[in-house]
């Protein structure tokens, strides 16, 4: 009852009658808010006429590069002109504009700022969605609130919040689902990877005669103690954790093509030199065709090109037994069924 009286009282007031009779939209609603991304603003002096804006523009008639007329003492400047009848205000042109300060400005939301953690860490962590079983153990152990979150049924690490403590990696029950990636010494890491690949290749080449004896279905096994490898790697970078990490990751996922090169069969036709995507194969008059193992991607394109069966490859798999640097052994497996046709 009291509410009914309250309603009647509300309707009887003058202000209600006024707002009922003269209903108008709040003028603020009609104003364009600051965040609205309007047509791009052109600053002709900054333009270098690279054409990136025209290439990025999705609308065919929206943007045009024009050049102002030359006068007696100066060349005319080139700058983009926005046709507001075609422009869709996407801001791509401002985003791609490479000059500093930019020749095109369009809203603040297109200034890309990469997410990063301000802590000086040497490792970042990501979750491999393919391997993740969504047990959420990492979420529960993570000491930072909200650093690991779930979105669209995916577990994601927020790089801006992560403090790189590595707790998620320790609790993760799946090998490889949480990946710790070293972000420093990338050049040295490359060298160590190169070293491991070349050592493994050399070891297999030593056994080439034995591998050729294999019959279909047989498996050839050979071991490589990693002591020497570790010693050489330490010369490149003295960080045992990183070396172990690299060797372990490589042996886990590497399915290496071991390239063999039978120089005796080579007729110097040089078809492979042109086809090699990394330029690892070179030709000199004195030395003939040579392959640079450090540059080689092991893609086996040369194997497919070579008409004389000079090039061959084995497919080898690896396993690091006892994941530790002291006394660790890489077990190499080569299958006979994958032996190259040209090698025999």
């Amino acid at each position, binding site marked *: 009852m009291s509410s009914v009286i309250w309603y009647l009282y509300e309707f009887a007031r003058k202000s209600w009658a006024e707002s009922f009779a003269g209903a108008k939209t709040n003028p603020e609603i009609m104003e364009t808010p600051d965040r609205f991304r309007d047509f791009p603003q052109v600053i002709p002096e900054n333009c270098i006429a690279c054409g990136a804006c025209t290439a990025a523009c999705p609308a065919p008639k929206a943007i045009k590069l024009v050049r102002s007329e030359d006068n007696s003492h100066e060349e005319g400047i080139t700058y983009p002109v926005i046709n507001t*009848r075609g422009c869709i205000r996407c801001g791509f042109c401002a985003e791609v504009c490479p000059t500093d300060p930019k020749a095109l400005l369009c809203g603040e939301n297109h200034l890309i700022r990469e997410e990063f953690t301000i802590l000086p860490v040497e490792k970042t962590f990501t979750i491999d969605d393919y391997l993740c079983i969504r047990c959420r153990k990492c979420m529960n152990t993570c000491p930072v609130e909200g650093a690991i979150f779930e979105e669209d049924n995916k577990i994601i690490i927020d790089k801006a919040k992560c403090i790189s403590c590595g707790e998620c990696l320790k609790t993760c029950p799946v090998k490889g689902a949480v990946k710790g990636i070293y972000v420093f010494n990338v050049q040295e890491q490359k060298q160590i990877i190169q070293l491991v690949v070349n050592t493994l290749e050399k070891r297999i080449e030593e056994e080439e005669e034995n591998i050729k004896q294999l019959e279909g279905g047989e498996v050839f096994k050979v071991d490589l103690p990693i002591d020497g490898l570790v010693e050489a790697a330490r010369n490149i970078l003295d960080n045992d954790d990183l070396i172990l990490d690299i060797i372990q990751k490589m042996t886990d996922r590497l399915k290496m093509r071991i390239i063999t090169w039978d120089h005796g069969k080579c007729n110097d036709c040089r078809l492979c030199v042109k086809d090699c995507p990394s330029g690892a194969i070179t030709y000199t008059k004195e030395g003939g065709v040579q392959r640079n193992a450090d540059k080689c991607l092991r893609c086996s394109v040369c194997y497919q090109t070579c008409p004389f069966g000079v090039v061959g490859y084995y497919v080898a798999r690896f396993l690091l037994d006892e994941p530790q640097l002291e006394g660790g052994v890489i077990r190499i497996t080569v299958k006979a069924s994958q032996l190259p046709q040209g090698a025999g």
Partner: protein
Amino acid sequence: MVRSLKDIIRSSSIHVCLINTGGCNGCDIEVVALLSPRYDLEQYGIYVHNNPREADVILVTGAVTEQWVEKLRRIYTKAPEPKIVVALGNCPLTGDVFNQEGGSVYAPVSDFIPVAAEVSGCPPRPSEILAAILSVAPGAIAARGREKK
């Protein structure tokens, strides 16, 4: 007497016919935003429906596909005098992103029917659409006058 009374009433009540001639529907959604209580189009005396026979203003969106070329002309002839066309968004002006090389859109709309006002933007803001309709319609209706029999 009745006719002139009607004219007075009609001058403050604009009937709008919305035509999408093959666009992405973004502009039409902005018109729907105008109809919503936030912008409340009808407080200005504008009524949106899709009957060209009683339309004061024809709002054209879209880049004019092949099927729409003839239909657009037909709709225009059906509208009563004075015929006022407002091209809404970039599609009827230049064809926008649809006007690619080898595409089959027939923009601009002004090739087929005379356009009284243009609203650029992809899509334009609801307030821009409203301003365009209000700037064109009452004046044009008053200037040209309704067809008297």
